[in-house]
Structure formats: structure tokens, C-alpha cells
């Protein structure tokens, strides 16, 4: 495979919309850190971040926090959606369990409907399953990611086992499945929850464990000194799971004689202390601490005595990141790679015993600390690998349309490529679109129609087919290409068509290109539509489209010119047509025709500078498009539609044509002389020539494209990452 086969010539900006009930700033809680981290990762991937906060945290429900300033500064946009539901927003379940949308606020839907109608987002990340209804508002083109944070199915049962107060969101597996199925990709915070989600849904589930690096710490002054007591500790926010676990741990801790005899102190920090009560001389309840750094610096070992909980223990990750030795129970270390037996203890008693052992065995403490650092290293790698998987999954899931062309579509003012650029732009409104370019030259500046399009070079002049094949392989592995538009010509066209069909089920041929038009003739009994061929749908419908959907930018000043005279545009004329043009020029005296060449012969390409020469001349009141090149006719007709100028297109082979005499009588024109006699009045011609809207034909194309996109099995495409459609 040639590494040079695919070079990015132009990158497309990408936008991510984040909806979260949790602020990203300040990062003082585990879930806020997680939200921030995922946004930060997407930023690194080149996404703009547009953050929507639906505040469900007590501080934000009370007032707009100072952190709003930080969020505005950090993200590309930040908006708050005010709640319209009655407080408390985190209401208890009406039934036994919460239904998945029980906390849904219709005002979020109103906001999202408005937003998605006006702005496109490549990616929509929704935090928490109870916000998942938001995913239904995103269009087909947007990749929908559900950042689950915590498992909520079975939470009520877990709290009952802990004898804890039933609070927060609790639901059933069937309800949680509804949320998962709304997404394209589910992010689980640990492997065990990823397995659980995967058992409920066929969506792609990716485990991205939380990990946050901390700056290297200096060693604690007492470290290694066996004469001072071992300092162990725990930090936790105020929630029923933390409270229930710490109550159980303290009950065990306080009841043990070996603890009393050991040189050991246990500090508990964080708001969890508000619901704890102890008079044990070796335990201190510190409450909320101002500095996490100082708290961790003060400890020899961090304990995470947790059983029966959900989600990832951010506190465990934090302790590992600070380089601390960690003693944990199975559940407290779940999601982190355990490399010491003290990482996966099975009971509160075993946790206490481990602390006692460490208090009197400092070499063991050093060993645990070293092993915990290995665990930290592995956790960091798992997070990085998780995010890498996520990035790849997003690309795979995102449906893409690939335009493959040998025309310099990025060139503005080139009559040959204007239609292709507008076609490509139409596709960007439906799906992410990229151009695989096989020609020479590179874009110097992005043209406005293609701002959202990534352009990659697929060609290599020395071995064009090999390099195109190799580039195609790479694209097919990386992206979910749902449709290919092929606009190439020459001897390479049939081979490229073969390659395209081997990589993608839907290949649309640009029948303006003669090699592809010839192929079409061999494959379908239908007459070749003028501009494109849809192989799978509407095989019995003859559809043609205007050559230009709207006025090209460089024509902006042309309308201001006063319309005068007429213009005969040569559209692939044969010798009879050339003679005919002379007859028209001589015979039509009232609107003196001028002549301009668009295509010199029936199969000749368009003159590259046709637009420049057209714009340099007068704006006519009437176009004659003369010759056998249907594409050139179409381009002239499109210009006529845009400027409301009648365009009479024909060739000698089309004669006779029906016109009107001066007094409105129908007349068949058999010769150019007849036409010169009867076609000199633009007003009269304007009365009979058909008129079209500028997007005629393209609206059908777009409707069908949307249908195809809707029916495409994105998940299947996503899982077939090693070569789609083959």
C-alpha cells in the first residue's frame, strides 16, 4: 500500500453539541470532570464544542454560577436551558421505578428542535440516560452518542441492599434499553457496565474509563518512617452510596481490636462526612477540604471500601493519579486494572486487615504504592485507548458521501465544475461529504460551496489506478461511506466504477461524463437521465435536474447589466449547426446575436473560461444554445432560468421545432432560416418556452438521498469496520 495515496487537501470543520445536566466547570465533582474530559477530547479531535446545560445540580438551580464565565471562555458556545418542570427536578419515581423519560423536560425538546432546524452538528453527545430523549431530535446526519456515566437499572435494588435512602434516578433494564437504543454509540465508564449495556442493546458500546493525570507529587516527609502512624483516608461526595458504604466500613473499623492496636489514623474528607458520626480516636471527619492536593499529600494510603455501587469510582482514579497506594474492595476498584491483592479485597473486614498490615509493614506499603502506580499507568492507557476507539467509532458510524472526481471541483469560475460543486454542496446538507480528487492541482482557498467538505487527493500520476484503489481501501476502512458519486472520464472510468462498486452498494454516476454515460447505456434499458443515474431507486422514472441549483457567486454583478441582444452559445455543434449559427446571426437583426463557445464539439469538455468570457460580454435577452451536447444545453438553460432569460436549445438533429409566428400562430421551423424568421422576439419566446424552478430535479434527488440515508443500516456499517460492502 502506498502511503502517498491519500493526502488531505482541505479539512472540514466539525461541530459537536453537548447536552448535560451537569456543568463542566469547575471540575470539583467526578461527573463534572468526566463531562469536561470528553469535551476536551472532542476539542482535540478538531470539533467545535457547543455546550447546552440543563441545570439539575443544586448550585446551578439556585443561580447562575461564576463558572459560567469559564464555560463561555472554554467552549465555542455555552447556553443554559431553563427548566420548566416543577422542582425538585430529581423527583422520585411515580411508579416503582422511573420510566426513562420521567425527568424529561419538554422545554429541552423545544430548544433542540429550534437549534437542529437552524444549525448542523456532526456529533450530539447527551449525558445520562434520563436525558436520552434529546437524541431523538438530532437528524440523520448527526452521530448520536450517549455518555451513560452510571448504570441506573438495578440502582433501586442496590440501594435497598445497602439499606440506603432511595434517591436519584432508578429504572429498569427495559427502560434503560430504550435510552441506549436511541443512540448510535454508548459510552460506558467501565468495562463491566459496557458489558451490561451490550447485553441490552445492539448499538456500539465503548468503555472509556475516567482518568485524569495529576502533576507529580513530592514525597511525603514522613514517608518510609515506621515510627509515625500510617495515615489512611477516604474522600467522597454526599450521596447515599458513599454514606452507606462508609457507615458499614466505620462499623467494622470501630469494632476491631487490631485497629486499636495499630499505628494507624483514618481521615474522611468530603461532604459525605455530613451524614457520618464517629467518636473513634483514630478516625477524623474533615468535611469538605479546600485543597485536594494537600489532602492526598497528607496520606500514605487511600482506602476505597465500597461494595454495591454503580459507575466508576472517580475517587479511586484520583488516588491512583496522585500516585498513592490504594487499598480497595472489588467494587471500589472496578474499572481499574488491579495489580495487587489489596486492590480487590472482598469485605470491609479484609480492608481493615489490609490497613493494619500496612501500618506495621512499610516495605509492603512501598510495594503497594509501586503496584498502584503500575495500575495508574494502565488506567491511563485504557482511557486513551477508549477515546481512540470512540473517535474511530464516530467516523465509522457517521454516514458519508464520497464524491470521486478528476475535475478540479474546488476551482471557482470553471464552468465544467460549477454544477458538481453545487451538487456536492446539496449532499453536505444531508450527510457529511468528502471529495476524493484524482486530478492535478490543489485548492488554494476553500470555495464557499465546499466549506464543509473534506477534500483528499486519491491520485498518483505514475499509477493512477493502484493509488486510487489504495486510497479507496483506506477511506473504506475509516469511514461509513453510504454512497459514492462518481464523476470521472476516460479509460480509467470503468475501472474506477468497478472499485467504487466493490466498496459501496450505492454508486451514482454522473452521466455528464461520456465514459459513464456509455456505461449507463450498457446497464439500463432506460434512456439515460441527463445528469445522474440512480441505480437502485426509481429505475423506471426519468428524472433530470437543472444544471445549476442557484446563481454562482461570480454572476452576482451580471444581473445589474442591462439585458440587450441575443447570444448564440455553441454547445457541441456539428458542421450544420455551425452553418446554422451563421444563418441566425445574419437573419436575426432585431436582437443581433453574438456567438460564444461552451463546448467546441459534441463530446468536447466545456471551455474552462466560459464563465469569464460570458460575464465579460453583454447580458442577452435571449439565449440560443446550439449543438448536440445535452449537458451544455442544460448549463445554458440553467443560466437562462437564473436570469429569467428565455433559452432556445436545439441542434440540427432536433429540427423541426415548434415556434409561433408574430401573430401568435404555431409554426414548425424546419431549418435555421425558419428559426431566424420566427425566433427573434424574446418576449414571444418567453411566452411559450417552459419554465423551471432553479432546483427542479434536485429536490427529487435530495428526497431520495434522505430516504436512502434513512434506510441505511448505520450500525451494520459501523461494525463492518474492516471493509464495507465487501
Amino acid at each position, binding site marked *: 500500500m502506498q502511503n502517498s495515496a491519500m493526502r488531505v487537501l482541505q479539512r472540514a470543520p466539525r461541530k459537536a453539541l453537548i447536552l448535560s445536566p451537569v456543568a463542566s466547570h469547575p471540575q470539583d465533582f467526578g461527573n463534572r470532570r468526566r463531562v469536561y474530559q470528553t469535551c476536551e477530547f472532542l476539542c482535540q479531535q478538531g470539533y467545535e464544542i457547543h455546550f447546552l446545560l440543563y441545570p439539575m445540580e443544586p448550585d446551578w438551580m439556585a443561580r447562575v454560577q461564576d463558572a459560567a464565565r469559564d464555560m463561555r471562555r472554554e467552549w465555542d458556545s455555552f447556553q443554559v436551558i431553563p427548566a420548566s418542570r416543577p422542582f425538585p427536578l430529581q423527583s422520585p419515581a411515580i411508579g416503582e421505578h422511573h420510566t426513562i423519560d420521567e425527568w424529561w423536560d419538554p422545554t429541552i425538546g423545544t430548544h433542540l428542535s429550534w437549534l437542529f432546524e437552524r444549525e448542523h452538528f456532526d456529533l450530539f453527545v447527551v449525558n445520562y440516560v434520563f436525558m436520552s430523549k434529546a437524541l431523538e431530535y438530532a437528524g440523520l446526519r448527526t452521530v448520536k452518542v450517549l455518555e451513560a456515566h452510571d448504570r441506573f437499572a438495578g440502582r433501586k435494588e442496590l440501594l435497598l441492599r445497602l439499606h440506603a435512602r432511595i434517591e436519584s434516578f432508578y429504572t429498569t433494564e427495559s427502560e434503560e434499553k430504550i435510552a441506549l437504543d436511541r443512540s448510535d454509540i454508548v459510552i460506558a465508564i467501565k468495562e463491566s457496565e459496557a458489558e451490561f449495556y451490550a447485553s441490552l442493546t445492539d448499538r456500539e458500546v465503548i468503555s472509556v474509563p475516567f482518568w485524569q493525570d495529576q502533576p507529580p507529587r513530592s514525597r511525603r516527609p514522613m514517608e518510609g518512617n515506621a515510627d509515625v502512624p500510617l495515615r489512611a483516608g477516604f474522600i467522597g461526595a454526599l450521596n447515599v452510596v458513599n454514606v452507606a458504604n462508609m457507615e458499614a466500613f466505620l462499623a467494622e473499623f470501630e469494632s476491631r481490636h487490631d485497629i486499636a492496636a495499630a499505628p494507624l489514623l483514618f481521615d474522611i474528607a468530603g461532604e459525605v462526612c455530613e451524614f457520618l458520626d464517629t467518636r473513634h480516636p483514630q478516625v477524623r471527619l474533615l468535611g469538605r477540604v479546600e485543597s485536594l492536593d494537600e489532602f492526598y499529600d497528607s496520606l500514605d494510603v487511600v482506602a476505597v471500601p465500597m461494595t454495591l455501587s454503580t459507575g466508576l469510582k472517580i475517587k479511586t482514579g484520583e488516588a491512583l493519579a496522585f500516585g498513592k497506594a490504594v487499598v480497595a474492595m472489588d467494587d471500589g476498584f472496578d474499572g481499574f486494572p488491579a495489580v495487587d491483592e489489596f486492590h480487590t479485597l472482598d469485605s470491609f473486614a479484609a480492608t481493615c486487615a489490609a490497613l493494619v498490615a500496612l501500618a506495621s509493614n512499610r516495605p509492603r506499603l512501598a510495594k503497594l504504592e509501586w503496584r498502584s502506580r503500575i495500575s495508574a499507568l494502565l488506567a491511563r492507557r485504557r482511557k486513551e485507548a477508549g477515546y481512540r476507539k470512540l473517535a474511530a467509532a464516530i467516523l465509522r458510524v457517521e454516514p458519508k458521501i464520497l464524491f470521486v472526481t478528476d475535475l478540479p471541483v474546488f476551482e471557482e469560475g470553471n464552468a465544467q465544475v460549477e454544477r458538481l460543486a453545487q451538487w456536492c454542496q446539496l449532499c453536505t446538507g444531508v450527510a457529511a461529504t468528502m471529495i476524493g480528487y484524482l486530478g492535478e492541482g490543489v485548492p488554494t482557498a476553500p470555495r464557499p460551496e465546499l466549506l464543509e467538505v473534506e477534500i483528499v487527493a486519491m491520485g498518483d500520476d505514475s499509477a493512477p489506478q493502484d493509488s486510487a484503489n489504495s486510497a479507496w481501501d483506506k477511506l473504506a476502512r475509516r469511514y461509513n461511506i453510504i454512497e459514492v458519486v462518481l464523476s470521472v472520464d476516460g479509460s480509467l472510468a470503468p475501472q474506477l466504477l468497478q472499485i467504487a462498486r466493490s466498496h459501496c452498494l450505492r454508486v451514482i454516476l454522473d452521466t455528464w461524463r461520456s465514459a459513464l454515460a456509455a456505461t449507463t*447505456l450498457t446497464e*439500463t*434499458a*432506460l*434512456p*439515460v437521465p*441527463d445528469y445522474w443515474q440512480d441505480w437502485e431507486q426509481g429505475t*423506471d*422514472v*426519468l*428524472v*433530470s*435536474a*437543472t444544471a445549476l441549483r442557484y446563481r454562482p457567486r461570480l454572476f452576482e454583478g451580471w444581473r445589474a447589466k442591462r439585458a440587450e441582444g441575443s447570444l448564440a452559445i455553441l454547445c457541441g455543434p456539428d458542421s450544420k449547426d455551425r452553418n446554422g449559427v451563421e444563418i441566425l446571426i445574419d437573419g436575426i437583426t432585431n436582437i443581433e446575436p453574438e456567438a460564444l463557445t461552451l463546448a467546441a464539439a459534441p463530446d468536447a469538455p466545456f471551455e474552462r473560461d466560459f464563465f469569464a468570457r460570458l460575464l465579460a460580454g453583454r447580458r442577452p435577452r435571449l439565449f440560443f444554445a446550439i449543438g448536440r451536447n*445535452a449537458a451544455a444545453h*442544460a448549463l445554458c*438553460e440553467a443560466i437562462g432560468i437564473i436570469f429569467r432569460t428565455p433559452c432556445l436549445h436545439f441542434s440540427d*438533429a*432536433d*429540427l*423541426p*421545432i*415548434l415556434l*409561433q*409566428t408574430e401573430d*401568435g*400562430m*404555431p*409554426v*414548425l421551423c*424546419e431549418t435555421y432560416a425558419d428559426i431566424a424568421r420566427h425566433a427573434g422576439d424574446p418576449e414571444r419566446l418567453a*411566452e*411559450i*418556452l*417552459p*419554465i*423551471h*424552478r432553479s432546483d*427542479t*430535479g434536485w*429536490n*427529487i434527488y435530495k428526497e431520495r438521498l434522505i430516504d436512502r440515508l434513512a434506510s441505511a443500516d448505520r450500525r451494520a456499517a459501523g461494525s463492518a469496520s474492516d471493509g464495507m460492502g465487501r
Partner: protein
Amino acid sequence: MENSSSKDALSFRVGLIERAVAEQGRRLEELMHALSDDEPSDRRVPEKILVEPASVSPFASGFHFHEHDAAGRAYRWTGRGDFFELRVPMNRNVNWTFEMELRGNEHVSVDPLRCFVDYIEIPVSFGGPSWLATGRIPAKPLATHAVLTFYLPGHFIPSKLDPKSVDHRRLSAVFYGLKLAPAGDAK
């Protein structure tokens, strides 16, 4: 309603006679051209061809731009002149039939509709609940398209009938589509 004058009948008929004469010479030229072309003469024939109003190239004259009715169906008003014409690329090695959905209205009756294939008049029948005009397109070996011309002398201008209307167009009948199918009989 404004009815088109019938004074055109004579000149129109003269035009058709001229056309019939000219057709002989042109046909000879067309056959020679086709025989010298690379296109295979045994091309397959599709089961049907549908010409949608929301298309471009088949509409040669007489049509307004496409619109959508209350049911979302695309249509085009005719009325830009007494004729409307479609040029359809198709394999003329066989006979074809056509069905054109054309709806009249209280101002324009479609009964007087006349049809010409390659400017030669053919019989056209009209009726049924679906407003279908049907006719037969004779085979024309080696030719690659058919010119279907319809003559419907009648039109109205909405703004002249209703002063509140801002529609100043000259309207006739409503074209909903053209379906072409091989006749399934001998050439």
C-alpha cells in the same frame, strides 16, 4: 375564460401538411445517421418510462414550473401557448403507448385535446376517473426520441377572474405526469 380563436386552424393544417412532406426527407437523413452511429440497434426496452413534472429536460414548450398540490403531488400547469410539448428520449424500435394524466377545470375542458407524435397527428382517447389521455406512439426504428405535442386551445388567467388573485399567468390544464410503456404488439 378566454377561448383561443379558431382562426389558426387553417394555417395550422397547412403547417402540418408541410410537415408531413418535410418529414419524409428528414426521416431518410435520420436513418442514415443512425446507421452510421455506434449505438447498438438492439438496445433493451424498459418496462415503462415515467416523466415526472418535477423534471427538466422532457419539457420542451408550453409548461409552467412545477408545483405541488395539497397532497404533495408535483404537477405543472400548461397554458404557455395553445401547445405543450414533451421530448422524451426513448427506444423507438417498438410501438409504445402513453398515458398522460391531464386534469381540466371549470374554465378549460380537456375534451378538445389533440395529440401529435413527431408532428403527425395520432388519435387520442380521453376519459375515465383518472383523467388519463391515452394514445399510441408508432415505432420509428433507430430513432432515439419522440416528440409529443398536444394542442389544447383554452386558457384562463386567475387574476382576470378574481381581482384578489395575484396570479397573472395564462393557465390551461394541469399535467400530473406521463407514463410510457411498450405496446407489446408487433411493430
